[in-house]
């Protein structure tokens, strides 16, 4: 039996500093799976990441409880987190600028 989710953003691990969009997410306060709210700054599509807290340049991005890269600029709570503001600590990410957006109008 499927119970529809009421939250829009998923916290995968307590130590994470990013949240995952469970579908299209609009700007403004959005409910998180841990019962809190985050004020989303840019509308994003399913699967995109939103900063849970402020993240300074060089700080590790944590998802699933582990580092998935580092912030390439300072990131504010509610910001969309993607290839424009984080980078791999291993090999550079290859993406097409035409399709890598992840935001929606």
């Amino acid at each position, binding site marked *: 039996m499927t*119970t529809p*989710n009421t939250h829009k953003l998923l916290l995968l691990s307590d130590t994470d500093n990013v949240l995952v969009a469970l579908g299209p997410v609009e700007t403004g306060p959005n409910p998180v799976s841990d019962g809190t709210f985050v004020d989303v700054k840019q509308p994003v599509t399913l699967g995109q*990441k939103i900063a849970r807290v402020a993240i300074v340049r060089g700080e590790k991005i944590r998802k699933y409880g582990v580092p998935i890269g580092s912030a390439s600029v300072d990131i504010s709570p509610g910001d969309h987190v993607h290839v424009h503001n*984080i980078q791999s600590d291993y*090999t*550079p990410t*290859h*993406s*097409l600028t035409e399709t890598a957006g*992840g935001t929606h109008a």
Partner: protein
Amino acid sequence: MLEGYLRRDGRKGIRNVTAVVYLVECARHVATEIVMPYRDQGAQVIGFPGCYPNDYAQTMMERLCTHPNVGAVLLVSLGCESFNRFRLEKAVAESGRPVTSIVIQRAGGTRSSVDQGRSWVAEQIKALRATPRVPMDMSDLVVGTICGGSDATSGITGNPAVGRAFDRMGAAGAACIFEETGELIGCEQIMAARAATPELARALVQSVNKAAEYYATLGYGSFAAGNAEGGLSTIEEKSMGAYAKSGAAPIVGLIKPGDIPPTGGLYLLDVVPDGEVRFGFPNINDNAEIAELIACGAHVILFVTGRGSVVGSAISPVIKVCANPDTYARLADDMDVNAGRILQGDGLDAVADEIHDLVIDVAAGTPTKSEELGHAEFILTYKSFDPIGPACLPG
């Protein structure tokens, strides 16, 4: 109770394939034409396009042609390629499978090769109907998993659901293989902590370090533009999602393409070549990895996709687990499992149960979506590997 096709070498298969094998690209058209009328009766094309010899390709072809899902083998040679068809034919014959070769230059060209090939294939298909059926249980089964066309849903829905199904099948005695060390970059220490022995833990870390160096030399990670469009920002993020396919069981071994797991349990398949960077990318697409899992004996493949791959494979059925509910809605005809419903509130365990039960059904003969649609992709490219070390297999 599962039933398998018993081969003369004692292995048990879940499909009864007649493999038509081109030994160089120049023979591919003839092989494809031979199979055409028998596509729905278990005839499939596999092959190697290169004209230069390669030990890896030779081993891969030997393992694939003696795979338990394969009942008979027709080799199609142009005649002047370097592939050692004599060694391959001998290996297949020694496994007890019917095998013959057609050499196009001797057979009189395309038309007569196709005619000869079709009559041999027709006979084999008829004969294979009499293959003995014997009881088969989970400990006879080898299951492989791969993810392709990943997006940010893959690591939350499809991959962890496959991981839980893997835990159940492995506990019941199946050999479960996960792969693509290039997509485990960033997870190496977490993964090593699950190794059955400290020596294996070191080998697991080394295999991922090798992948990281290999991809660094190439200048690209195992990361496609569609991964970024789907919300993945870095290789580490993609890796953590991919790693979830492995479940939570201890890792009992590290194998390379063509190595057959000697026991049940969870194995990592190291797909990145050894030595200096040669021959280009480790795997140029998903089917290259699927072929390697099958060469390790995988009877069935669990393929997790977020963006929406539609491929199947020659030799072993591919079950497609769609991680993204939007993709599932668009490509439902191609997908076997809708794991994206986890995002809408369904539990991981419900989807894991569905995957587990579907493996049993498919092993019992139910066609997957890609089989129904006629997908039977296959690709094999140049690679080079050193043998696995002594610490890599369960003692």
